């Protein structure tokens, strides 16, 4: 493969670990996104917010009761996705990593997801899963972007490729009767992805991953969004209803529009 040294290193790391953590490629875009969240929180709660963005986000659980978390989250995510230019900013933050790991002709999820996980909240858990188990294409990756520092149980976990392959071989025996049993069978092998605000994760969604109860004292805020090569196979998440091309190249445009001369 004709990769640069940096591209080779990124590729090897991704294949070995199933994920990479890198600095946000566009810090202005990241700060813009974070500031939009602060604006939306202020509008949604109708309060004056004091403190740094990190403080406001980390301690939002002191202002919103768990019983109102879902409604709060929905308002924020709807408001966020309706802001012009949000998806492009999100893409720019991970662009060089995506172009190395996935393709330079990318399709991006139409709506960006948001996760808000309060300390000790058991209502926002994502049981262990691989997105491919519910029909996603194995050609997709997830760009996971924290708005605050994420560590220990405030972060997400992933099962590395080697261990994931072992799990696939003995899946029936290890899965038992519930996703919790499955988690218990792999908990010694999982890796918690420590990531700071200002960094971004790209991970293989075909590897088992999830989160647990956040036992830290701060709220986790993270976004996630799927990307894939435009012309790679699609799973249940289709072109148009879920994915949209964002970096279609000129030769693909002319190729798709091409017609042979009419000879009869």
């Amino acid at each position: 493969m004709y990769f640069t040294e940096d591209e080779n290193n990124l590729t090897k790391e991704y294949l070995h670990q199933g994920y990479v953590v890198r600095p946000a490629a566009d810090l202005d875009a990241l700060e813009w996104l974070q500031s939009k969240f602060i604006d939306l929180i202020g509008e949604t709660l109708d309060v004056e917010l004091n403190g740094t963005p990190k403080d406001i986000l980390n301690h939002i659980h002191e202002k919103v009761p768990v019983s109102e978390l879902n409604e709060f989250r929905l308002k924020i995510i709807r408001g966020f996705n309706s802001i012009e230019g949000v998806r492009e900013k999100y893409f720019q933050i991970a662009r060089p990593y995506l172009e190395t790991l996935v393709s330079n002709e990318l399709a991006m999820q139409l709506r960006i997801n948001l996760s808000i996980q309060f300390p000790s909240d058991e209502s926002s858990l994502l049981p262990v899963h691989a997105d491919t188990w519910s029909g996603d294409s194995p050609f997709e990756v997830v760009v996971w972007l924290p708005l605050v520092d994420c560590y220990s149980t405030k972060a997400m976990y992933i099962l590395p490729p080697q261990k994931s392959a072992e799990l696939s071989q003995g899946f029936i025996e290890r899965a038992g009767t519930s996703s919790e049993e499955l988690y218990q069978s792999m908990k010694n092998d999982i890796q918690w992805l420590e990531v700071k605000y200002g960094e971004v994760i790209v991970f293989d969604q075909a590897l088992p991953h999830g989160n647990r109860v956040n036992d830290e004292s701060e709220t986790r805020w993270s976004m996630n969004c799927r990307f894939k090569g435009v012309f790679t196979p699609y799973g249940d998440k289709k072109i148009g209803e879920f994915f949209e091309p964002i970096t279609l190249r000129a030769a693909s445009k002319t190729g798709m529009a091409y017609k042979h001369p009419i000879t009869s």
Partner: protein
Amino acid sequence: MGERVPQHVQNLVIRDYCERNGLHFLLSAAEYAMQNSDLILEQIMCELKDIDGIVAYSLFQLPEDSVKRNNIYNQFIAMRKKIYFAVEGLSAGTKQECERIEILWRVRKTLPDCIKSCL
């Protein structure tokens, strides 16, 4: 594009889309099931001047023929009306928006010639 969702499910999706986007739902129309038929769509296009626009279940219900699709885009642009696609949450009423829809169509039509998953 060879896929079928029951009509009552399509109606539910369309009504929900209208409700969430503040669109006044007038009445639904179902296309004839014959392959490549767009007679009902053409009929509604004739009535476009009397309504604000059309909400389709999916953008892939537009005609497969690119010339016919272009004609439809051009009518919406010329009449300053809008066509909405409920499943995709997209809409088109300007040249730029129509080009976005057309790119999705072209990629979708190209995919059968691309690599396939072995899953």
